[in-house]
């Protein structure tokens, strides 16, 4: 509740072109947004570039639009992130055959280094590979729910579905990930 109020206050200040509010928003949400992007792009550099772009885009959006569609600043940031990732893959699709939907992202050395630095890296590395085999929607809800800790209502806001649907998607996504990790084939 306190977070929601803080989010609203930040939004109001951003609307008034308060650059300090922008910095506060950056510090509050950068880690989550970066992580969300990190799972979906092939390199750490791409994750960094896209994260910067997402915050600038959010600034512009708040100045020129009403937040009614996204309800919270957090939801807006995730929404912009999802669109930015789609655009990123669209731009790269001509030079790189890798697509957002094939779910098999090559993890480059720099990204690998980051994973290896994590505690329990074997499990994380394995799970990272498996989660990338899921379809986008499943991957998104799992990261949003269990990694970035958004509640069902917030996820519903980000992916544009109702809470009931989100619960079903989370259940199916979890089951799909379990099936993969157990070596079973999944049906997306």
């Amino acid at each position, binding site marked *: 509740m306190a977070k929601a109020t803080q989010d609203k206050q930040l939004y109001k200040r951003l609307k008034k072109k308060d650059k300090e509010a922008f*910095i506060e928003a*950056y510090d509050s949400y950068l880690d989550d947004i970066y*992580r969300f992007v990190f799972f979906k792009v092939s390199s750490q550099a791409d994750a960094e570039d896209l994260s910067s772009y997402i915050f*600038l885009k959010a600034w512009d959006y708040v100045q020129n639009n009403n937040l009614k569609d996204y309800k919270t600043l957090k939801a807006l940031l995730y929404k912009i992130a999802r669109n930015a990732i789609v655009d990123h893959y669209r731009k790269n699709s001509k030079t790189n055959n890798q697509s957002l939907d094939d779910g098999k992202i090559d993890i480059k050395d720099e990204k690998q280094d980051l994973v290896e630095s994590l505690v*329990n890296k074997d*499990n994380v590395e394995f*799970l990272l590979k498996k989660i990338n085999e899921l379809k986008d929607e499943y991957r998104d809800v799992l990261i949003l729910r269990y990694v970035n800790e958004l509640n069902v209502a917030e996820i519903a806001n980000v992916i544009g579905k109702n809470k009931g649907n989100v619960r079903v998607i989370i259940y199916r996504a979890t089951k799909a990930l*379990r099936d993969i990790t157990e070596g079973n084939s999944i049906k997306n």
Partner: protein
Amino acid sequence: MVRFAHKYNMDEKDLIKNLEAFKEIKPREEWKTFQREILLKQVSGSREGTNLEKAPMSLFTLLLQRLQYLTQPMMAVFLIAAIILGGGFMSVYASKDSIPGDSLYIAKILNEKTQFVLTFNEEKKVHLGLTYAGNRAKEIKELMQTDNVNKNKGDQVEKLVSDFKKEINNAKNRISRINKEKELPITTDEKIIEESIDTGVFSANLKKDEQGIEISSSKVDLIKEEDVEEVINIEKTSTTSEEVLATSSEATLEIESNPEQAILEAQDLLENQDFDGTLSKLEEADDLIDQVGQGEVQGTSTSIIIEEEATSTGENL
């Protein structure tokens, strides 16, 4: 520490615990700090830009803005008109060679009708009618040459022939009307010709060669009866009469080569499926239309000269 039940075979709780481990993924601190500064500069820059937008407007700026409001609708109207007119010309051009069954054929017919309605000069209407008749002839030719199996081909050709005849008849009627309007001078000239026929001198000159032969035979009888000097005179006269006959024959041909005649011939040629012949006959008729008024007067004046010469020659006889 999260454990896997069987190597990587994990239950839901384990799975979620492992997923939570991803929270440790974070951007590099140095990048984070560096990027914060860059973004702050960019955001500050955009705010300054926004302030500029809110600066009080000068009179000139205000005037420019008002002008924009005025010019935009005008530009829009101009562009719409340009598109409509341009599109119209393009479609007319594109439909030029269309035949019945083509999607653009209707545009071609509409264009013809519009053009005809907007033409007020009767002579020009005749020209247009003949052009359209020519178009129908071309379409029939093209339709008959197409190899594709067209069930309506017979009906379409029949319709085109009917349209061709309509155009032809309209053109003929129009030519008659134009002639009637210019009847007065023509009637006077014709009367002169008729009078000359009544005199029985060289009325035959305006008819067929057979009658010319009759005249020559009468000359032979005269030679038998008269003396040598007279024969010489008659020979001179006969020469004159032959010249007159030739001249009158040419005049007769000229009169016969009227547009109505050419149109009738075009119709005959179409019925015989000679489409090229039809088109060239229509072109001929088209050329002759300009002479419907002016040309006939010239033709009649030639007749007058013939008549005068004939009369004089007759008197000599």
